[in-house]
Structures are given as C-alpha cells and as structure tokens.
C-alpha cells in the first residue's frame, strides 16, 4: 500500500466538506450501477439519470432508495470526520447465504485536512473525470464477472476506526470474506483529501 498522496495546498479548490459530499455521491451512484449491472434488482425498477457526463441508472424502489440514502448520509458524516476506511458492497446468494462478490472501495483519508481549513487545489471537473472513468470500469467489469445465477441480495459494510461509537440502527458485522476468490483492482480517484481505490473480488 505504497500510495503517496500528492498534496498541494495553494489556490482555491476543494474543501473537506465538499470532498466528503463528492465521495458519498460517488458511492451512491457506484452502488446503484453495481446493483443494476449485476441484476440484483430487476432492471425495470431503475431510471436513467445524467451524471458525470454519463447516463447512469438509479433505482426507483422506495425501500432501497431509503436504505441507500440512510447509508450515504451516514457515510458523508464519517467521511467528514475522516474515520471511515472502507466501504464494501457484499453480494450474497439468498438461498445458500454464500458470499459471491465483494466490491471494495478503500478510502484513504488525509487526516491533516481536518486541522487546516484551507481548500486543496484540484478542480471539480478533474475529480469528476476520474470518477467517470471508475464508473465506466465498474460497468465494463460485467463482461468478465461470472453470471449470478441464483437470487441475490446485497449488504453494505463500512470499515471504520475502532473507537467509533456505533450509532442507532447500525450494528457490528463480520467482514464477509469469499473463500478462494479472484481479485481485480480497478481505477482509483482522489479528491486530494479522500482517495478511493476500487477493487472487486469474486468467486
């Protein structure tokens, strides 16, 4: 894990708050894309939305939307506090309770951003371009991932710092590993405050 964040702290750019919002938004769209591409929910429950210069699919299922909004809001808060390390989308077979896929988004927080309030130099457009390429890659991975034959459900695991107090409606969980998995590392993007490395592990 020898990733060095190149930090430049001149000029106007992105703030910690803005970075947290951007990353949480990326998670929302990324998870929606995964759910659509992997057929976890029926495709007719998705609607088209223009974002990052792409046509993305977003769910219209009210329960799912509610759930995702809950998680995204919580993520935003934790990203702002820089205490979240990882977000994992776990796809589980309902029948056998076997974990079939893990989409892992490693988050590297630059904790120094909490102390100095100065914005970082990186344009919104550059970040969005990076995010677009990540989402494109997520869409493209469907070509080599194995077909999900049985009915599946998904869960979102969030890796946080140990000293975090567990909020209401949340609980601790296992890491949900896949035995004998294949892993593929995808592109990453950075807002200079949060760096998100995307990877997928599958059976």
């Amino acid at each position, binding site marked *: 894990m020898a990733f060095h964040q190149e930090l430049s702290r001149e000029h106007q750019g992105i703030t910690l708050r803005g970075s947290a919002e951007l990353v949480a938004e990326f998670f929302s769209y990324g998870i929606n894309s995964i759910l659509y591409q992997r057929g976890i929910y029926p495709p007719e429950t998705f609607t088209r939305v223009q974002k990052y210069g792409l046509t993305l699919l977003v769910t219209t299922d009210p329960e799912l939307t509610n759930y995702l909004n809950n998680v995204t809001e919580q993520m935003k808060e934790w990203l702002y506090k820089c205490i979240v390390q990882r977000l994992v989308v776990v796809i589980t077979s309902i029948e056998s309770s076997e974990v079939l896929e893990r989409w892992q988004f490693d988050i590297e927080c630059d904790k120094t951003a909490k102390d100095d309030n100065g914005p970082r130099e990186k344009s919104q457009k550059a970040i969005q371009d990076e995010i677009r390429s990540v989402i494109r890659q997520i869409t493209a991975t469907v070509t080599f991932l194995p077909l999900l034959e049985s009915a599946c459900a998904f*869960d*979102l695991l969030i890796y*946080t710092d140990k000293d975090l107090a567990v909020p209401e*409606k949340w*609980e*601790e*969980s296992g*890491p949900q590993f896949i035995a004998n998995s294949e*892993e593929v590392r995808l592109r990453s993007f950075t807002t200079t405050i949060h760096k998100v490395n995307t*990877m997928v592990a599958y059976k």
Partner: protein
Amino acid sequence: MEDLDSNTTVFSTLRSLNNFISQRMEGMSGLATPGSSQSSLQMQYQQRMQLEEQAGQIHSKSQLLQVEREKMQMELSHKRARIELEKAANTNARNYEREADRNQELLTRIKQYQERETEAENKLKEQMEMNKSYKKSMETMSKKLQEKESKLAEANETITILKGKISDLQWNIMNQEMQMTNQDSQKQELMEQLDVEKKNSSYKFQLAHCCPPSHVFQDLEQKLSQQEHDALIVKNMKAELARFPKMERELRQLREENAYFREMKENNGLLKEEVEGLQRKLERYEKVQAQLVTVELENEKLLGKLQSWEKLDQSTGLNIRTPDDLSRQIVALQQRELALKEQNSTFMNSARMLEKARQQLQEDLLRVQSQLVDEKKKREHQEALVRRLQKRVVLLTKERDGMRAILESYDSELTPAEHSPQLSRRMREAEELVQKLHAHHAELEAQLSQVLEEVGNHKQRAEMVSSINFPFFPRLKIEELEAERSKLAEENRSLEMKLEKLTLQGDYDPSRTKVLHFSMNPTSLAKQQRKEEQQQLQEECERLRELVRVLEGGGSISATREGVGSFQSPQEVAELKKQVESAELKNQRLKEVFQTKIQEFRKVCYTLTGYQIDITTENQYRLSSIYAEHQGDCLLFKASSSSGGKMQLLETEFSRTIRELIELHLLRQDSIPAFLSALTLDLFSRQTIA
C-alpha cells in the same frame, strides 16, 4: 361444466317427459267426453294461447342460447386465429433468422470481395510500376530514336550537298555540250561559206577567165587572200573538229571518273565513320589510360597503406592480416570492453553495497557505543550504589557495635538473672537483623558483580563491533549480513504481497478497525423473508401430511372436508359455492324451459296428427288416437334400433280389431303414416256417424 350441463339436460328431459305423461293421464280423464262441452274448447283455446306465448318466450330464450353458442364459437375462432397468428409469428421469426444467416453469409462474401479488391489493388500498383518502367524504357528508346533521326538528317544534308555537286558537274557537261553544238554550227556555217566561196571563186574564176579586169583581179586577189585566210580558219576548225571525238572520249572518261568518284565518296563516308568510331575508341582508351594512371597511383598509395598496416601488425604483434581479422579483433575488444563494463558495474554495485553495509555498521557501532555509554553510566550508578551500601554497612556495623556495647553495659549493670531472656531475645533480633543485612549485602554484591560482568560483556561487544567496523573487517561477516538483508527484503516483499492480497480480499486489522452495517440491510431483510416463507411452507407441509395420514387411516369425509376447509381459504370456498349456486340455478331454469317446451311439443303433435305418443319402455312407443272409441285403445310400435330407423307394430287388443287396415297399409303398402291416417279417418268417421 359442459359435461354437467349435458347430463342435466338428459335428466331434465326425462323428468319433463314423466311430468307430461302424468299430466296426460289426468287430461285423458277430462277428454273422456270429447266435444260434449264448448267451455272445454274455450279452455283449450286459452291454454293454447298461453302455450303460444310461452313458445314465444322459449323461442327468444333459445335465440339467446344460440347467440351464446355463437359467441363461444367466435371465441374459439378467435383462439384459432391467435394460434395461427402465433404460428405465423414463428414462421416469421424463422424467416428472420434465415435472413440473418443470409446476411452473415453476405457479410462474409463482402469481406472476401474486399480482400479480392485489395489484391487487385496490389496488382494494379505492380502494373503501374511496370508501366512506369516501360515508360522510362520508352523514353530512352525515343531519345535513341531522336539521335538516330538527327544522324539521318545529317546524312540527308550530305546527300543534298553531294546532289548539288552532281548537278554542278552536269551543268559543266551541258555547257561543254553547248559549246560543242556552237562549234558544230560554226563549222557548218563555215562549211556553207566555204561552199559559197567555192562557188564564188569558181564563178569569179569563170568571170576572171571571161573578163579579167584588173580591179577584178584585185578583187579576186583580195578574195583569194580572204579565201586563204578562210582556208586557214577552216583548217583550224578541222583540227578542232578532229579534236572533238577526243573530247567526247574524254567526256566519257570524265563520266566514268565521276561515277568512280561517287563510289569513292561513299567509301570515303564509310571510312570517315570508321575513323570517327576509331577516334572515339581512341578517346575512350586515352581516358582509360588516364584512369589507369590514377588507379596505379592509388594502388601505390594503398600498397603503402597496406604496408603500413602490415608494419602495424608487426609492431603491435597482433595477428592482423586482413580487415576481417581486424573486425574480429574489434568485436573481441568490444566484448571485452562490455565484459569489463559489466564487471565494473558489478564492482560498483558491490562497492555501493559495501558502502551501505559500512554505513549500517557504522550506525550499529554508534548505537553500540551509545549503549556502551549507557552501560558505563549504569555501571557508575551501580558503583555509587555499592559505595553507598558499603557505607551503610559500615554504619550498621558501627551501630551494631554500639548496641552491643550498650547491651553489655546493661548486662553489667543489671543482674543477668532478671534480664537475660529479654536481652538474649534482643540479641537474637539484632543478630537476625545483622544476618539480613549481610544477606542483603551479599545480594547487592552479586548484583554488582553481575552488572560488572554485563559491563564487561558490553565492552567486549563494543570492542568486537569496533573491530568489525574497522576497515579490515572480515568479509564473511559482511556477506552473511548481506545475505540476511536480501533474505529479509525478500521476506518483506512477500509479506507485502500477502498483505496486498489480503486487503484485496477485504482483510482488516481488527485492533484498529471495526466493520459496521445497517441493521435493516437488504440481505438480512431478504433472509428474514426467506425464513418466514420457509416456515410458512413447513407449516403447510405439516398440515398436509396430517391430512394425508388421516386419509390413509380411513378418516371420515367430514374430517377430510374439514381438513380441506381448513386448507382452502374461506374466500375460495365462498367463490366455489357461488359458482355452484349459479350452476344450479341455470340447471333449474333449463329444466323448466325443457319441460314446458316438451309438453308444448307433445300437445302440438297430438293436435296435429291426432295421436298421442308415449314411451312405455325402452324402444316401445304407444300411440293412442284422439278419436279412439275406448280409452285403452292403443297401438304399440317397437323400434328395431335405438335410432328409431325401423318400426314394428306389436299386437294389442285394439290392433286385432283393425286387421284389414294392417293388411292393406302395412303388409302391402308398407307405410306406417298411411296406416295411421287411414285409422284416424276410420275412427273419425265412426265418431261422426255415432
């Protein structure tokens, strides 16, 4: 349902028939006195009217039924049409697939054609190149042709020049011929003059002979002289004439010479060409010679160089005879250089590595030295401690001595009998204290020695390290360390790889991280739902199993019904009940309709034909006429087959009384309707007569 319907129709017809029969039986009693009262006719009329009305109603209902049937048929046809459409769709889909196949074939063909096209293009390019080369050759050829043409023009010019010369010569010849002709004409003139002169002379002579006057003489003399003069001229002319054939000969000779010269000229041209060719050759040879000279010069130079090289070979002692040798030598040298470079780099690397190792060792040394300093400090501390303890020991011994002295003084003062036990106890206590102190002292001394030893060890190690660090440190040690370092680096790399893989798989450090998820996440919800579903299904299965057990054990229908009832939802039951009710209602209505219809039909038959037809038993029909004299008079017919194709008259009491009719109409004419009509007429006539 349709089966049920058809069954009910059969049943209902039977029932209605029975009803009618019973009615008929009642009616027959009323008809026992036919035509006796008008009121009965009125009643009949009214009844008929009612019946007609009913018939109308029934007719409309039957129309309704027909419409319904038509609707059914329409639905059927609709289904059929849909099936056909589906078939058509299938065929269309197949056609589409075939089209797609064809499309692919066409695509492959297109590809082939494209390949062919590219080939053709390549060929075209080749052809173009060939064309270009041909054009070039054409140009060269045309140049040559031009040269040839220019030469031809030159030749033509020479020819024209020669022709001009020839014409000049001809001119000369012509002039000479003209002169000759002039001379000929002069000669003729002269000859004529001569003749004239001769004549004149002769005349004059005659004249002179005749009349010789002086002046005539003079004239004649003059004339003579003249004549002489003329004769001279003639002689000259003759001489010239004599020269003429010679001149002709000369002319011929000249012509021959001319021809000869012409030939010579041609030869001369040829020779000139040859000369030119030879001159060119000569020039070329001269050039070649000049080149030869330069080449010889170069050759000499090269020889000199070669000699110098050979001398070099001798001087260097290398075996260089040819350039190949030299190049080989150079290659070998380059290889050697490369090898040396590699060696150099490896040496540099090793030097760098050694430098690193040295730096590391220096760092180690520094660390060790700092440790040594620490240890020294510790030792000093320990030594100070020891000194302090020794001091304390001295103090304690002094105290002990003081205490003893005090005790002794006490002993001397007091009687030993009174205080001896107390004192002895104190003594013992004091001695114990002393012993403890000794033990403590010994312990401290042991610690001290240990510390000293440790210090010694450290010193030794420091010395060792310093000795290692010395420029002449043992090589083995370095190599060992190097090996260890590389091993550790490799291990580190492998561990990093493992860590990377584990992070990819989602591993985490449980001491720093915890995994959270939303408690109402979709997976757990789905699992819960599934669990509930499973439970429901299990319950249902259990219930059904129980039901099966009851049924196997020969349980009562009510129990099973209960089971079924409990199994089926009440809604379903209600629905089924409603269906049953509606079906029953329908049945009831149909029954009523059939009954009325059948009765009406029978009554109509009775009034129209005058016979009431009843079915007594299977395939037996009883006919009783409207005009029968007795109530029991009837005819029995039996159908030979169930379809009622052939009828046979059975003998009854009444039939015996009408033998003539039977014989006439049945046996001879073989017509039951005729027989029945005859009987009707007979009975009617009898009644009217009566």
